[in-house]
């Protein structure tokens, strides 16, 4: 366990929540559930009015340079205005780009000069004292309090957990427990009353970060992942990144249309999972019906816990 990091995660007070692209316009239930859950845990959550993409997808394609990406991150973080010390992301991609930009402050003189002068030109400065955590890390730290707030236990739900490469491998030394054998999401699942099940391809990449021009590879990766998950017949798939969510959500729809599978297993973000356990409305508050894999909630394995109310 990365004790140093765990210690720094705040247990109360103000948080700056940076939602990122996908959780605003594709899976907006991630944003709403995150805000609701954090508020129930007693935090004071600030969400910036405008959301800018951190630039990572374009950086990975070779279009944006790291300096451009870091400057955009600086523009995003500047909205903390010295009032917020702790920035939370709900996405492994944003987590990776923001942490890289924060490390760059310490390491690279020449690059920082370019970034600072670009930021100054639009009236901002790069905030110096900001920590960036993934919301899943905070949930792990708060698991005791979370367990006390459970109103709809996930009893009997078998859950397949996927962590995601950009969290585990892009900043290996910042992983909460271990990049090779991570356990913290699985532990949150037990806290909520569910059972985390093992599956063969637990470590396999979801395929989503592949360039959009190389569909075949993305498809093959996600397909292998899903087939391995289906073998264990879970009720739910848990992710901590909207990009992974999209890959694992979409592939099932494609495989369904090719008649390779005949049911879908809902894929949810960790904030939505905790929202479920807190008894929030699966449609209005968690937006689960906006996921391809759980459009028809009453037919999905989730009905086991939903119908009891």
């Amino acid at each position, binding site marked *: 366990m990365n004790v140093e990091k765990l210690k720094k995660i705040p247990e109360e007070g103000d948080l700056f929540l940076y939602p990122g692209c996908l959780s*605003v316009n594709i899976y*907006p239930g991630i*944003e709403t559930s995150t805000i609701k859950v954090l508020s129930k845990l007693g935090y004071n959550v600030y969400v910036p009015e405008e959301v800018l993409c951190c630039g990572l997808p374009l950086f990975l394609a070779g279009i944006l340079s790291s300096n*451009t990406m870091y400057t955009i991150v600086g523009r995003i973080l500047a909205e903390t205005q010295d009032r917020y010390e702790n920035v939370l992301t709900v996405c492994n991609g944003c987590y990776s780009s923001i942490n890289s930009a924060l490390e760059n402050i310490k390491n690279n003189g020449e690059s920082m000069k370019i970034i600072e002068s670009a930021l100054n030109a639009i009236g901002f400065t790069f905030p110096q004292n900001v920590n960036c955590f993934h919301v899943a890390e905070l949930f792990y730290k708060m698991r005791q309090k979370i367990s006390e707030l459970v109103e709809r236990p996930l009893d009997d739900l078998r859950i397949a957990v996927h962590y995601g490469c950009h969290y585990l491998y892009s900043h290996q030394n910042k992983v909460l427990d271990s990049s090779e054998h991570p356990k913290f999401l699985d532990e949150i699942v037990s806290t909520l009353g569910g059972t985390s099940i093992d599956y063969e391809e637990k470590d396999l990449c979801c395929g989503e970060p592949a*360039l959009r021009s190389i569909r075949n*590879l993305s498809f093959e*990766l996600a397909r292998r992942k899903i087939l391995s998950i289906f073998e264990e017949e879970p009720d739910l798939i848990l992710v901590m990144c909207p990009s992974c969510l999209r890959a694992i959500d979409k592939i099932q729809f494609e495989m369904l249309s090719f008649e390779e599978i005949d049911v879908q297993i809902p894929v949810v973000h960790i904030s939505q999972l905790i929202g479920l356990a807190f008894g929030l409305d699966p449609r209005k508050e968690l*937006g689960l019906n*906006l996921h391809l894999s759980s459009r028809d909630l009453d037919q999905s394995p989730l009905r086991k816990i939903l119908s009891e109310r």
Partner: protein
Amino acid sequence: MGELNKSLSLEILLKCLQCGSCTGSCPAARFSQCNPRLLAYHLVRRKFDDVKNDNLVWLCLICYSCNVRCPNNVDIPQLILRLRENALLSGLKRDVLDLYLSIVDILMEWGMLTPVLSEEIEMFKRQAGIKHGKISDQTRNDLKTIFKLTSFHEKLKMFEKEGSLK
């Protein structure tokens, strides 16, 4: 282009042991011709044409698995990003370039890479009181300035696409 490749070669030559741990841990290698060890080999042997034309550069997921498992900490993802940039700048991979430049247009309109795609999502956001939509002109101008001052414009000129951001 030559200069860049030379410095990449040197970096790898000094560090890569050709042990293959990277390829062994590479998820893309399981389902495609992606092969980080081979890429390093081509670079060390200065077979730049093999690198340039190679799908190796485009099949990588930038998942960082190889980087974590490499015994000598060779930064393959970083190398691949530089090779990608290089290939785009030299006019290879026109299709990839056009695709991503069209995404830049979406970014300039929304500030995000993902526009709202359905009425259903629009409605959910409205009911939930989520207001994030397209960015303001002010923020759009901020982005343009950032692009200009961090040399993205020069790159766009090389891509012959600077028009879209003027």
